[in-house]
């Protein structure tokens, strides 16, 4: 039924996205990009693609950071246009999508300020997709006083909800008769990466709930599937990264941290929760997720996290494997009709494309030999469909 009326409100936005499908770089174009000998050459190549307009004003020897910023800006502009053209649920949905980038931005800002990086540099590096006016006010952050940051600045912002939940949870987890000092210590020791993961987990759960409650069945079908996998990937990542992590020295601490960071949605939760929370080796993790064929296959190729020091560029890390698999899923979801999955996939795939371009730009600027394994480390959107 919802397929019949999908076009009434969201047809235009969907049509634009479908049109933007043509802007993805093809495999042949990636090949050409790999053949570029220098950054100016890469730039002039990109100027012949859809990225033409966003690069024209720059000088040919463009630093990768600026290149990334330009590419992202283009994506953000496209997204903003679609957001402006959308109505009702779609607007809310698209806004939810952007929250993820806002979280990233906020955490990046906090991290930067902690490391005493100048605010102007930080502001110029924020992801335009996750821009919101209050972001520059994060500067008020003093030391590690996250609660006053929340109270003064973030409370009004869309991600304030997550931040509040995060603060509450972290404080609750302290022992019963906590003092103000304890809380301050807690925050001082907290790593920005930890904040990011927790916030993102909350966002994911919230987004999942939103999709479940407000979207039409077709969109739900496509999105919940994607989100479940994403949640599972997050879980696997958390577990994987915590194996052999020196900061978490006791078993109890590992488990509580894991419990805090693993999303409470997905295919693995709650059935396998017990197993994966206690997995202390890669094999145990494999065992824990063996219920799902897909993950077992993915983990089969993953290198052992305990031998982290031995990793080099050649190693296909877990992240690479997962990106690859995600990319396939998104490409499939992109071709689904009449669902909001298109927007989500588009965003993800474009992100992947930008990552690819930046990766290649890095490779080129370092003048690595053409037989260097790094050249193969790009995942081309939609390349999975052909096979």
């Amino acid at each position, binding site marked *: 039924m919802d397929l019949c009326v999908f076009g009434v409100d969201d047809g235009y936005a969907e049509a634009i996205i479908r049109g933007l499908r043509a802007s993805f770089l093809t495999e042949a174009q990636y090949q050409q990009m790999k053949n570029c000998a220098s950054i100016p050459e890469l730039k002039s190549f990109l100027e012949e693609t859809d990225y033409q307009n966003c690069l024209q004003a720059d000088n040919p020897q463009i630093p990768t950071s600026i290149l990334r910023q330009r590419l992202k800006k283009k994506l953000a502009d496209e997204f903003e246009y679609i957001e402006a053209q959308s109505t009702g649920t779609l607007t809310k949905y698209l806004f939810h999508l952007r929250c993820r980038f806002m979280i990233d931005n906020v955490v990046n800002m906090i991290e930067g300020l902690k490391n005493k990086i100048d605010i102007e540099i930080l502001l110029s590096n924020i992801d335009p997709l996750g821009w919101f*006016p209050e972001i520059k006010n994060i500067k*008020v952050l003093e030391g590690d006083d996250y609660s006053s940051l929340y109270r003064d600045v973030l409370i009004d912002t869309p991600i304030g909800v997550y931040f509040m939940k995060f603060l509450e949870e972290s404080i609750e987890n302290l022992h019963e008769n906590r003092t103000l000092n304890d809380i301050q210590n807690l925050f001082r020791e907290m790593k920005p990466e930890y904040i990011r993961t927790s916030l993102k987990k909350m966002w994911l759960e919230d987004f999942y709930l939103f999709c479940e409650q407000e979207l039409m069945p077709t969109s739900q079908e496509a999105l919940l599937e994607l989100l479940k996998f994403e949640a599972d990937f997050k879980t696997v990542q958390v577990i994987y990264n915590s194996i052999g992590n020196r900061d978490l020295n006791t078993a109890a601490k590992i488990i509580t941290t894991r419990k805090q960071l693993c999303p409470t949605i997905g295919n693995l939760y709650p059935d396998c929760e017990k197993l994966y929370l206690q997995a202390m080796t890669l094999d145990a993790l494999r065992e824990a997720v063996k219920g799902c064929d897909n993950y077992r296959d993915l983990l089969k190729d993953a290198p052992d996290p305990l031998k982290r020091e031995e990793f080099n560029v050649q190693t296909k890390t877990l992240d690479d494997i997962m990106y690859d698999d995600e990319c396939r899923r998104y490409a499939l979801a992109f071709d689904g009709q009449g669902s909001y999955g298109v927007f989500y996939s588009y965003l993800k795939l474009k992100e992947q494309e930008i990552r690819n371009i930046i990766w290649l730009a890095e490779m080129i600027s370092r003048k690595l030999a053409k037989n260097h394994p790094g050249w193969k480390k790009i995942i081309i959107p939609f390349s999975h469909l052909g096979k």
Partner: protein
Amino acid sequence: MNFFRSQTMGYYKLIIPRESAWNVMNELAELDCIHFVDYDPTLPMINRPFANYIKRCDDLLVKIQLIEHEMKKYQKKITHCKDVNLLIKNFKQLIKERSKASHTYLDEIENDIEKKHQQLIEQSTNMENLHERRNKLIEHKSVLLKGEALLGQSFFQPANYVAEGYVNLQGKELDDIKVLQGSVKFNYLVGVINKEDQIRFKRIIFRITKGNAWMNTMDIESDQIVDTKNDDAKIIKSVFVVVYPGGGGSNIITNKLNKICESFQVAKYTFPENNMIFQEKLRQIETELVETRNLLEMTKNQVEAYLDDFQRIYQNSNCSQIEELKLFLVKEKYLYTQLNYLRVQGSVLYGSIWLPHGADIKVDQALREVQTSYEGLPTGQLQISPPEGTRPPPTFFETNQVTWGFQEIVNTYGMPRYKEINPGLFTVMTFPFLFGVMFADIGHGFCLLLLGLYLCVFNKDIKESDSILKHALIVRHMLLMMGVWAFYNGWIYNDFMSVPINLFGSCYYQDDEGDETIWARKEDCVYPFGIDPVWLCVPNELTFMNSYKMKLAVIIGVIHMMFGIILKGVNAIYFKNWVDFIFEFIPQIIFFTCTFGYMDFLILYKWSENWDNRTQDAPSIITLMINMILSPGNVDQPLWGTKEDSSEGQVQTAMLLIALICVPIILLPKPLILNCENKKKHAHEQSNLTDNMNKDLYQKINEESEGTQENSQLQAESSGGGHHEEFGDIFVHQVIETIEFVLGSISNTASYLRLWALSLAHGQLAEVFFQMCLNGGISTGGFVGAIRLLIGYAIFSLVTFGVLMMMDVMECFLHALRLHWVEFQNKFFKADGYAFEKCSYAKVMQDNAAPKEE
């Protein structure tokens, strides 16, 4: 005959020494008659030898665009170039007069533009800075004035506060605070903030001070602050004042507030403490403001003088300086793009070109000219050579203003194959005619005719003016001819906006026979031209007209299509393709004559027969045709002879049989013959293969060929291999062709009925408009009638213009287009050629000279 078949092309090799590449190319590009063949289309432009120059031109063009943008901002009007040929001559003269190498003129221009661009940027940053300063001053001034307005003078009088203490300001008004002022010390914060940030700022202040502050804002008059970074858009800012209790533990608050201010990028100002300083400050700002205003004015004048320089039209020129520069760069870029089509080997450039027949003399002359005019420069050479690769020569038609539009109609469908009959030639006549058949109306046709005449006669005047009709000029001859035929066909149908004209006097008169009135015909009277107007008055008008127009449409259609088939035959003879001629053209034309040709014959026969007093004997043509297929040989109502002895039955059977026999002749022999030929060729090639290999090897060693050449050879081989089509493919192809022809002959004939249908629609629409708008008024008469007529006429004219003169013209145009593209051209037109693209400065410069429409 250059329009009937495309011009004969010759393939030539061009060899240019590198040092004179620019001069030779410059000379050649002025000839407007060379088609350069890209030596390797797969090679991207950036990897070619002259890419660097192209890039430079592009960069300069971007700079010029920036300057143009700047000029637009200062409302400088650029004179665009109308005639580029003069400019080309000027450039040539200019370059010749220089003593240095010709291609270095680009360097000179590059330096010049870069310098000017730099200066312009400097000036504009200067402007920006001044604006910024002015903005600051205005802000400061506003802070003083608004702050005073917000707080009142008395607030800043030095006060003798008694004690420091905590005061709760929540929910208090300014007046309350003033009362408290005597007892508590207050801090204040004054500044300017963007209006859009205002609310968020207020909120954050509230939260940080925990509500213990008083804040108010006031907008600055918006038109004063200019955002120079954003094309001088106006931004709205507002002055804010925050009052919060000072002393005590409020240092933290002050710190925090400062930080907030910083993060909002607000400008803070200190407010003078007493009236005297206040007035002093105000005066100071005023004087500074005047100063900046003067400076701004000066800089602006400078920039304007600068831009005036670009705007000026120099002597011997016909456009602004900037336009001239732009066109020069466009020309230069084009030159290098063309040079990129040549292959560089050592210090020589090799290129392949197509030349129309006879143009080689012109090229030779141009090459010699290079030598004479630039002494000491080696010139290029032109050599005739056999065509390389598998691409046939390009198609080139010399068109003029009349034929251009019609040729364009054909080209839109597909470029004619090299040397194929050009349908454009016939389209010139048939297109307006078929349009006229559909748009047949004396009145409307005349309007169109007038428009066409107007455009043709006042062509020059309109071209100079800014009229909308300027865009229609290019098709003025087409419009004129369409008008002529619509007008003529209107007379044939005797239809003047739904009213027939009784020009010669009708052949019928009313005859009262008892109660009924019948129309009787005068003895031996034939209405001399067109349809007798009396048909308007009889109830069976529509039946009569429909049958008449329908038959006319079919006759025209069959003639048109037969003509198309004959052209196929002519093509086959020209290309000496005897298989096509004997086994496709001949059976096809026979098939068509025997079926639809016969139908036309029946129609004409029926028209020429006198059916007076025996109308019940006249057979219906449709029934005749249907029966011819369903029960051949049986004729119920013969067209000639009596039922018992009429040759009609035999004729029908014979026609049907001949047509049926033609079908297998179209279908079978051609694929069989082709297959035979292919086999022979294949066998021949196998024996030649070893020879070829030796030859290849020899060639490779001899020419030291590069990768590109190998590529083209590979391509040639592979496409040569493509000729060995399987018999199955050929056969299926022929089956499709046959089916298409046989079924197409029926459906296409039916398709020509649109000639009738559209004319009917046109007539009916005209009648409805006439009846609804005018008829009432005319028949009422008197004063009321006059009023009704007045109103009715307004509506009538509008509707006639909008629906009939605009929409119906377009509709008829499209249908005429379709009849040509589908029904006519599918009989013979291959349309797989590609256009001859002459290398021409004039064209590319003219394209760039026109102002872009926004």
